[in-house]
């Protein structure tokens, strides 16, 4: 009796299961282009590498260093190298659309991560944090903390030309609609730079020494805020009557430490490992010609504060170190 049909059947089952699980060979390379490299991105890079290792693929990493042209060249190179898929954190949200179109036209799936491109339909898949929900949660916290009393808020803004910066600001302010007691006394553009956050806080406190709250839409801003509060003798723990209420976003080790030290009231942690895992899983699936649904996903941040940090720490990536 021939064993050929049995062997063919087994081979078919193995191939089918490989396709179904999206398994790829260890030689499969996924191109990864980051907009910049900074502490938060370092954590994202590690999460991507971990996710790629778990998926059995290699990553070819490139850093655009805040240069849209450089990112375009990197994506071109990844296309020329015939990488199985590309995962990118766009620097320029408009330029990212063209990158996605070029890549997909060459038969290479394009996954955007963290920063949404201007047209989400252009990409194979997008996974990001939910900057609008994060901003809204921060705004609602300030409204609750103000309890109807007059409240002066300093808003430090991240990038004015990127999705996270815009939505974290816009949705914060949307939460204040109907709450006239909350007055945003200054909106300081910082371009995600702690030195500008420091000068902005210094200047805002000069104009408004009776400031009640500060919104730091990324954790590194805290490094600019704390020296100013310390110099003004108002770097006081949560619960102190003279404490200035601070809400921040990211969930980095420094953010976690600031919560543990009771220096900030609320931290909204971006679920970095989950975001990276979904980006890599989608890239692998798309490279295997599998359908990805939904095509766009947002992961809201995980809010936590000094009173529940011990309980929440296992879920917060920055509290792991």
């Amino acid at each position, binding site marked *: 009796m021939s064993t050929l049909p049995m062997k063919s059947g087994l081979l078919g089952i193995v191939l089918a299961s490989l396709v179904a699980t999206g398994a790829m060979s260890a030689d499969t390379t996924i191109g990864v282009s980051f907009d910049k490299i900074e*502490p938060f991105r370092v954590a994202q890079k590690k999460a991507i590498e971990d996710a790629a290792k778990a998926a059995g693929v290699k990553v070819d990493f490139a850093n655009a260093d805040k240069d849209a042209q450089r990112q375009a060249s990197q994506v071109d190179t990844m296309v020329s190298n015939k990488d199985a898929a590309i995962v990118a954190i766009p620097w320029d949200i408009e330029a990212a659309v063209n990158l996605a179109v070029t890549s997909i036209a060459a038969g290479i799936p394009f996954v955007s991560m963290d920063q949404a491109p201007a047209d989400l339909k252009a990409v194979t898949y997008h996974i990001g944090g939910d900057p609008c929900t994060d901003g809204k949660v921060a705004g609602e916290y300030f409204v609750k903390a103000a309890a109807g009393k007059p409240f002066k808020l300093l808003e430090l*803004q991240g990038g004015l030309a990127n999705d996270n910066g815009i939505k974290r600001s816009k949705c914060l302010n949307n939460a204040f609609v109907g709450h006239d007691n909350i007055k*945003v006394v200054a909106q300081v553009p910082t371009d*995600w730079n702690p030195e500008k956050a420091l000068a902005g806080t210094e*200047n805002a406190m000069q104009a408004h020494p009776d400031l009640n709250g500060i919104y730091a839409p990324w954790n590194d801003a805290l*490094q600019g805020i704390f020296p100013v509060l310390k110099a003004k003798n108002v770097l006081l723990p949560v619960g102190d009557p003279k404490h200035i209420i601070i809400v921040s976003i990211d969930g980095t080790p420094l953010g976690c430490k600031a919560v543990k030290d009771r220096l900030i009231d609320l931290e909204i942690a971006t679920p970095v490992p989950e975001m990276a895992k979904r980006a890599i899983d989608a890239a692998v699936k798309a490279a295997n010609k599998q359908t990805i649904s939904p095509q766009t996903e947002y992961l809201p941040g995980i809010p936590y504060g000094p009173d529940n940090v011990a309980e929440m720490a296992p879920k917060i990536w920055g509290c792991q170190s």
Partner: protein
Amino acid sequence: MISARVRALENARQQLGLMLIIAIVAIGFTLQTIRFADAENLRNILLQASATTIAAIGMTFVLAARGIDLSVGSIANLTIALAVALAGTPLPAELSTATDALVYPVVIVFGIVLGLVNGALVNLSGVSALIITLGTLTLYRGLALHLTKASLIPLTGAILSFARTEVLGIDLPIWSMGFATVLGWYVLARMPIGRLVLAVGGSPRSATETGIAVWRVRAFVFALSGFCAAVSGLISVGRVGVLNSDLGFGFEFTVITAVALGGTSLFGGRASVVGTVLGAMLLTVIQNGLNLIGADPYIYDVVRGGILLGAVSIDAFVRGQRPMAVQMSD
């Protein structure tokens, strides 16, 4: 050939024009908020201007000698990264790095060395300083990223002292800025090396023909620029208390803008340290004032660009210059 007296008069007019602009801008902000004009805010402005001003004084010498140093921000970043690597003790429990006084010689020496590397590359290659320092901008920044792994490194200890110490009630960075201004002015206007710098900037060929060691002058200005950039890095990092991969990113544009506003020619041969200081002050006053009045964040660049254009136009008017288009058609 312009005589020294005519040049001095021209510089004085330039500085007067800039002072006028600063006064107009300051009055404008004071009318918006009285807190702009108090002593505490004057301290804020001087403190916030100190890092830019010191780096800009170094850049003034480079531009005066017909060079340019695009690597100042990267030098600030790399020297601090080197100091933290060589004289820092990581404290994992505190998520920070402790530093001792050794950071100061390390920062200063490496600032000078990195500047000298720029100067040597310009001298040896004969390639434009613009291209060379564009290369070292990336190289130095890359080395800093490699050293720090792009991590955010909170710092404690001696490295913070320079930016956070007061002498006679005035912050050390402000004293340093004042000292750098006086010294820079004296060196450029009164010392033989200052005349050599301007001579090389005016015409490198003539300078060579008259026996000036042009390569030495270039090495001097780049070393000075590296030194000033390193001191700026100490101020920036000391104020924030953290070494961030973004330290010094884009700093070169602010510094060159301050120098150009101050009347130093981008083509060499004409420079003013006092003008540079006023240029840096104007940039800081605008930023400070906009923060104070709670300006719409999207209007910052518009206001900044408008005031800078206004400053350049008024300066041209005060100095009795005709518009460039007319000059070119002559």
